[in-house]
């Protein structure tokens, strides 16, 4: 079992619902301070987005963040260098599209991530069917591969994905790309479907934009991922202190 999963299971054992904020690396020059602030604010792990030109699974906010980061010259290498110089104290989970790893070669990519202290990877366009090579490359490292499940996922796939995912299972709250909060989500049903087949920690993301939603989702899941809502404040000029406040608000809502 990868260290990420060991940590997250322990967290659950301790009765804590995980809070995992998402940051786009390089979207602002001080992005890593924001990450550190989030940890102060009560994050249990952080998702580090590595910008890709064609973020098929992301809504407008994260697209904009990625464009800014790319325009600023951010690369997988630059992100890894920055991360390896920082000591953030919580597990780091990389989130990006498969082409960045594919292009560099999987062994080289996992080496880079490992060297930067990354403990998990979310690759939303990497289906379980196509993931064998990647998982083989990760096998030699401590990087957990985290799979998503969605409201459209079928029973048979829930079983396979829950069995394959490492660290936690990422449950999409709704049929949407990141940053869309409209309409009621199916998060509870999705989480239940995972639970029916596996005891892996199950976190809810995609569509959690308010502390209230985080509070509600915390009632039936093991963790909460908040992305676009936070990224948007940062794009709009939030300081690391603002980010700390944002995260601690979510922290409190979850813990209530």
């Amino acid at each position, binding site marked *: 079992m990868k260290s990420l999963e060991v940590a997250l299971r322990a967290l659950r054992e301790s009765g804590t619902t995980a809070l995992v904020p998402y940051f786009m690396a390089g979207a602002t020059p001080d992005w890593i301070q924001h990450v550190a602030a989030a940890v102060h604010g009560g994050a249990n792990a952080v998702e580090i987005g590595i910008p890709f*030109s064609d973020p098929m699974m992301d*809504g407008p906010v994260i697209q904009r963040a990625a*464009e800014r980061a790319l325009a600023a010259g951010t690369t997988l290498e630059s992100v890894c260098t920055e991360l390896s110089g920082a000591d953030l104290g919580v597990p780091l989970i990389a989130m990006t599209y498969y082409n960045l790893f*594919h292009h560099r070669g999987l062994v080289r990519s996992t080496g880079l991530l490992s060297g930067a202290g990354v403990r998990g990877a979310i690759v939303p366009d990497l289906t379980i*069917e*196509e993931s064998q090579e990647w998982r083989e490359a990760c096998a030699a490292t401590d990087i957990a591969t985290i799979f998503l499940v969605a409201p459209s996922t*079928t029973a048979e796939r829930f079983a396979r994905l829950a069995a394959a995912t490492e660290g936690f299972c990422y449950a*999409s709250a709704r049929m949407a790309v990141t940053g869309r909060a409209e309409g009621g989500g199916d998060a509870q049903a999705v989480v239940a479907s995972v639970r029916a087949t596996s005891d892996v920690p199950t976190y809810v993301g995609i569509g959690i934009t308010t502390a209230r939603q985080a509070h509600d989702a915390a009632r039936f899941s093991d963790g909460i991922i908040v992305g676009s809502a936070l990224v948007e404040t940062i794009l709009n000029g939030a300081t690391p202190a603002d980010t700390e406040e944002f995260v601690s608000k979510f922290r409190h809502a979850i813990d209530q």
Partner: protein
Amino acid sequence: MNQPPLYMDRPSPAGHFGDFGGRFVPEALMPACLELESAFVDAWSDPAFLEEYRTVLSEFAGRPTPITYLGRFSKQFGVEVYAKREDLAHTGSHKINNVVGQTLLTRRMGKTRVIAETGAGQHGVATATAAARLGLECTVFMGELDTQRQALNVFRMELLGSRVVAVTSGSRTLKDAVNEAMREWVTCVSDTHYCLGSVMGPHPFPWMVREFQSIIGVEAHDQLTRRGVATPDVVVACVGGGSNAAGIFAGFANTSARLVGVEAAGGAAVTNGSPGVLHGMRSMLIQDEQGQIEEAHSISAGLDYPGIGPEHAHLAASGRAEYVGIGDEDVLVALQTLSELEGIIPALESAHAVAWIMQEAGRAIPRGASVLLNLSGRGDKDVAQVREILRGRQ
């Protein structure tokens, strides 16, 4: 007992053509891809579906399109050129073949809506057309830049009852329209089919679109046979995503014909690209050293795509087909030459294939060789642009 390899057969169960293809999509879309695959497999072996598909193509879309022997062009360049006239198909290009198939499949799956991406608007207009005929709701995603460059095609789609959404992300062109269509599809898979416009995207699209386009090659083979040139020496087609090329190659993949795909030099995914993953597939892509996808640049909007269909990547890797790049200048000359000599104004896309013949006649194409040219579309959509360019030079 060495069997020669069979080209352009079914991909592997996971949708691979050699090292390429597959499915690289958000989990949310996987059930839709699987549903589509099984619906297609089912339909494609159902005589009633095949019959309807063929009937709509013949009674609505104008198939079979003729083969025109290009007499004056052939004489001038010393090779025997036959043009497959997809420019005569309804809406002006081969795109209609695919959308007729996919909209019939949409109805068969019980879905009531289609979405599509479009660059210059050809696939968008074709989709809007086929959707109108069946009374399906239709939304087309188009890069904002393209909606401005191709405002008339936006209006055409609207006339046909479709909604056109201008995509403001990224480079605001075709690849961003694909991204946006995928994002939209995630939200509405239950009642909506994504009508992809070329042999790209996740399995089963590259295979399905090739199958729907293979009627081009099947007809051409049959027509040439009746003229006594069953197997041409060369079969040449332009390649954006690669659907018209795949369609015509399909009729000749297991013959002795040389297969040549002509990409825009500014978007030559095979010549200048490298393997990568985009839009649901592993294929050849134009990307920078970081693995960020680059924008393609071509005089023809329809070839402005930074990738190529995975089956083409495989045909290139296996050596069965060759892919070459042609620059904008040669394309302009080719468009003018074909117009003047044959009375056919080709689409700028198709003019890439014409230009290659002009360049290679007597070189890579031996004198007197027979060449089957896929004239994928008509140039009417391009004359305003060509006029501006040529006037700018006077």
